[in-house]
């Protein structure tokens, strides 16, 4: 990787350190946002849009807890924030043109992940970075330009398997990981969400969130 892409290298190094070294929490490769003291967890394959969705929600009245790692407490079942820089990629970069310029990093073109620009989480996210939240909803977003907006329930066993795959330290934590993950699944409904554009994704998220009450 070239020196010009050093910021991306630093980010990847930090992610690797978290993924391999974290023992206090069950680590999920997932984005988390919070509203009214409750957390929405979004996980999916690379390109599913969880990071972009979390960042957008973070600019629209939600608190961004993290776009890359969700930290699940092994004892109490709370999600802890990790609001590191958001790594905006390719088309997602233009969605954040309106934010304060000092929150945006340099445009990194031609990286192994395409064009990248880092976005600093906003003041609200940083000031509340020590405040955990109780998980309330798990979403598995899937982006596809030709997909019809759709929501479907996901069975508990499938949620369990998908979250073990999304965890970087489930196996290392042993029984504590099993207990915390099954506790999370027992406490939260889960939905798969297909969306063709960010507006429909945001509308589906708000609709699902309202239906929780």
């Amino acid at each position, binding site marked *: 990787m070239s020196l010009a892409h050093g910021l991306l290298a630093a980010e990847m190094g930090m992610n690797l350190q978290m993924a391999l070294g974290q023992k206090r929490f069950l680590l999920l490769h997932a984005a988390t946002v919070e509203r009214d003291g409750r957390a929405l967890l979004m996980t999916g394959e690379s390109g599913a849009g969880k990071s972009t969705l979390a960042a957008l929600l973070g600019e629209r009245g939600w608190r961004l807890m993290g776009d890359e790692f969700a930290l699940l407490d092994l004892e109490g079942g709370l999600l802890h924030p990790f609001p590191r820089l958001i790594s905006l990629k390719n088309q997602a970069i233009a969605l954040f043109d309106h934010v304060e310029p000092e929150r945006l990093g340099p445009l990194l073109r031609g990286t192994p992940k395409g064009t990248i620009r880092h976005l600093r989480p906003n003041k609200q996210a940083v000031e509340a970075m020590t405040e955990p939240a109780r998980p309330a909803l798990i979403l598995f977003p899937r982006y596809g330009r030709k997909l019809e907006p759709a929501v479907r329930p996901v069975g*508990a*066993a499938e949620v369990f398997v998908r979250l073990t795959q999304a965890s970087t330290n489930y*196996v290392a934590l042993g*029984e504590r990981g*099993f207990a915390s993950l*099954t506790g999370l699944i027992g406490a939260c409904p889960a939905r798969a969400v297909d969306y063709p554009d960010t507006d429909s994704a945001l509308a589906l998220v708000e609709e699902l969130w309202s239906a929780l009450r």
Partner: protein
Amino acid sequence: MARPRFVADAPDAVRSVELEGLTALYHRPSGMTHILAPPAPQILDAIGGSPADAAEILKRIGERFDLASGEDAEAAIEARLAELEAAGLVRRL
């Protein structure tokens, strides 16, 4: 020929959680997680700490659940036992 008898780890060697009809099971001796569909969890429960062959397991399960009996049912239990054996959750004596 005598039919194979199986033994499982003691009940406290596993921790299980039901997930809408399926069972997530953490096996403490191996540290492995398994997802089981019925009747595999019921077979493990039926063996408990007391070894049994397929016919005996079927009888024990029948004491608690309403299920079919006969050769087909025994064959189904044997098939599940083979899967549980491959997963390391039961052992052949």
